[in-house]
């Protein structure tokens, strides 16, 4: 989109932090079309010819647009539901929803939605419920029946893997009956389900009744826009949608929406490997790659090896879960994974590998070692996603095998207290999400939010990695903290590298995309503990200016 005729705009800023090691700080940045023409002083930049000087960022700090290496665009769609979380969270409109500190407050917010709804049969849908926060109180259908006995009501938990519903919803799903025998559907003294549904299968039965249509969540045009608005508010200019079935109709709709003139975010969407042959997913990714546009990048594959830590479904090596819970679940076999790796290496398709437990990390590494013997690849950049429990030896193998690590830094904040007591215990909680070890062992590092599992916000994620503080204020594993500069690198060039886009985005540098985060203060000068509070004015994305205020 760049031609010689396009106007050159030179932005003046209080400071420009380029992340370009050979030109780290500047005062001016020249933009032509969607590209950076250069960063430097006015004299240097004026050599490009006529320009328009734009002073609007004169008191702002410009940094490379942040890159969220592991998120899901579903976060956008969720905001059409009632936010029921314990912590304050900002919606796409910029409204801060106060965290709900008691069961009564949750019910009151749901009741407010009940009063707003016109259609008397419309469901009430909530999300981000986190029962652990309320002293172990478990919610039951009677609680939610006080909100409505007429409408079906469902509240998705923060983890996304559990749901609470009212009696009406159970009834509509055919679950209000005796004789249900399911380890993840607890029953009350009356022999009927309590309304807590702990497995995806039970949730599937109620989803449609309580307003959670999965297809809609996966690709909803309005949701995609809402997601992009959250990106602008958090300084994010490129974000991943890391696991989408990507049927043709979704691809068409995503291409259309991201291609709209004012769409402010570059989306990288990976095809999820599930219920298909490795050859088919690799073939599909190669076809999708051809459909990539500037604002929608396709052609990578996501594979899920195990479950989650807090759900006790991650695969751990011995000595296993701290509370004695049985080991988690596998979602692929070694044979399938090796075949996927081999075909992907052969056809130059990048693979992102979900692995939470260290046994899953072992599987990811072992199969790669075999696959690389058959199909060596000089720069595959397969990325271990989450890779929460990896130890130093595993990081050393990652380095040898050419893996990148995208570490779930936010997890420590939201679930660290539980990791200490229940999932992995004190020692492994210290090494968990070991950013310092990754860097020490030379593994290319990114850090992420996994939004909507936790809130989108790269500066917050950087804060998590730099402080390793839990919600209760404990610091777990101080030796794994990284510096502010390292954390900022991880959310810009680090994440770009894991997407094979570091030549295009991640720094403010001549020839790269004009993607910038516009900040109120210099994050490099922030104390680690203040990193999350650096104000975000908005972004420049592809040379276009988007303010959080008006987006």
């Amino acid at each position, binding site marked *: 989109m760049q031609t010689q005729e396009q106007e050159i705009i030179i932005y003046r800023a209080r400071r420009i932090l380029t992340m370009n090691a050979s030109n780290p700080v500047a005062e001016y940045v020249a933009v032509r079309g969607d590209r950076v023409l250069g960063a430097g002083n006015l004299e240097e930049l004026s050599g490009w010819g006529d320009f328009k000087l734009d002073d609007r960022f004169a008191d702002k700090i410009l940094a490379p647009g942040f890159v969220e290496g592991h998120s899901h665009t579903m976060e956008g769609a969720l905001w059409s539901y009632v936010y029921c979380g314990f912590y304050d969270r900002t919606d796409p409109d910029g409204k801060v929803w106060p965290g709900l500190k008691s069961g009564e407050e949750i019910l009151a917010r749901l009741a407010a939605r009940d009063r707003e709804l016109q259609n008397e049969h419309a469901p009430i849908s909530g999300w981000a419920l986190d029962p652990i926060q309320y002293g172990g109180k478990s919610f039951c259908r009677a609680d939610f029946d006080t909100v409505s006995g007429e409408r079906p009501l469902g509240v998705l938990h923060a983890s996304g893997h559990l749901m609470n519903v009212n009696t009406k919803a159970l009834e509509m799903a055919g679950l209000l009956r005796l004789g249900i025998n399911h380890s993840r559907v607890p029953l009350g003294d009356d022999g009927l389900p309590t309304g807590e549904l702990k497995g995806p299968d039970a949730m599937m039965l109620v989803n449609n009744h309580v307003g959670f249509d999965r297809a809609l969540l996966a690709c909803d045009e309005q949701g995609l826009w809402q997601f992009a608005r959250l990106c602008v508010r958090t300084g994010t200019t490129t974000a991943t949608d890391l696991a989408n079935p990507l049927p043709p109709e979704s691809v068409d709709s995503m291409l259309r929406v991201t291609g709209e003139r004012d769409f402010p975010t570059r989306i990288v969407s990976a095809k999820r490997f599930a219920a298909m042959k490795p050859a088919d997913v690799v073939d599909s990714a190669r076809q999708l790659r051809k459909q990539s546009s500037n604002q929608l990048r396709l052609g990578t594959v996501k594979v899920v090896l195990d479950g989650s830590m807090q759900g006790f479904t991650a695969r751990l090596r011995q000595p296993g879960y701290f509370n004695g819970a*049985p080991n988690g679940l596998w979602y692929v076999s070694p044979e399938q994974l090796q075949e996927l790796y081999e075909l992907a290496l052969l056809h130059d398709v990048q693979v992102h590998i979900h692995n939470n437990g260290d046994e899953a990390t072992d599987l990811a590494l072992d199969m790669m070692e075999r696959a690389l013997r058959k199909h060596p690849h000089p720069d595959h950049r397969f990325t271990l996603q989450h890779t929460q429990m990896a130890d130093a030896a595993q990081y050393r193998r990652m380095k040898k095998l050419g893996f990148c690590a995208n570490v779930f830094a936010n997890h420590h904040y939201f679930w660290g207290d539980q990791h200490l007591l229940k999932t992995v215990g004190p020692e492994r909680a210290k090494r968990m999400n070991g950013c310092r070890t990754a860097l020490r062992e030379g593994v290319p590092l990114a850090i992420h939010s996994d939004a909507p599992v936790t809130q989108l916000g790269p500066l917050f994620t950087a804060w998590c990695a730099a402080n390793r503080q839990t919600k209760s204020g404990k610091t777990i594993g101080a030796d794994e903290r990284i510096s502010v500069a390292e954390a900022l690198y991880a959310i810009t060039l680090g994440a770009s590298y894991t997407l094979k886009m570091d030549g295009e985005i991640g720094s403010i540098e001549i020839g790269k995309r004009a993607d910038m985060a516009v900040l109120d203060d210099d994050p490099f000068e922030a104390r680690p503990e203040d990193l999350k509070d650096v104000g975000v004015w908005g972004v420049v994305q592809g040379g276009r200016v988007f303010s959080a205020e008006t987006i």
Partner: protein
Amino acid sequence: MSGDALNTQPTMPVTVVGGYLGAGKTTLVNHLLRQANGLRLAILVNDFGDLPIDADLIENQDENVISISGGCVCCSFGSDLIGALIDLRNLEPRPDHLLIEASGVALPGAIAESVSLLQDFKMDSIVVLADAETVQQRSREKYFSDTINRQLTSADLIVLNKCDLPGRDDLSKTETWLRNDFPNAACLCTQRAELPLCLLTEKDVLGSVIETRINARTTPFSYHPGYVTSVLEFPKGRDPNAIAAVLAHEDSGLLRAKGHIEGADGEIYTVQTVGRRSEVRRSPVGVGSVGRVVLIAPDWHVAPAELADALGGRVHIR
């Protein structure tokens, strides 16, 4: 979608077929389809990656459904088993029996739990196949040992398949290990997963075996050498729960038993066992062959006459 409470159709019995990759699950499914003989089997598979149905059985195929001659059907469910089950209960004509082929890494017990969430379906049994040559070694390997053990633990029937491959000593060691470590399952050996359909479907046990044996007076199990059957007869007033408990006990050596018994209260009860799993429920109105129970075993561990004596009945057909 109509509410489940309004649904008056009978429940569809479900067999979950599990086992690690290469154990013979797909072979078994095809073998069962070849015996369907009018029984409308529905098959749910994880996906159509490697076509799960032999080409000569396929009548028609579209993206997610394969039609099979004789009214059978095979559907893929991807990651949405519940959605596929909901679709299936609306299928016309309604299948008589559902087989769910679990993926090699799935836990059949978890699939059975999912099935229990839908009231139109009823778990019949979990069959787990094991490769006679590799299962014991696999059960100790890195990564999947606990998964394989959990698969086997959930089984009602363990089918030790490809038992022609290991030597006699090795096979016998594997069998002993299975019987000791997984006492809740009945265990049997096959070569090419050639399991008689009557072991897996309740309808066939009564419908086919009794009719065939009573009407034609054929001698033992003509179409499946390697199994023995017998029919016991009970006067009314015997306790169906007590009978079920004995038939499902490990010492009975039975793979499957089914029949209808008139209890002391004058009600007719259907007694059914698969391995160690047993079920007693009120029979539908108008069932035939009341007072008779069919037994199937790989070989008589306890003579039918002894079982009959112990339970206060007699052998009707040897």
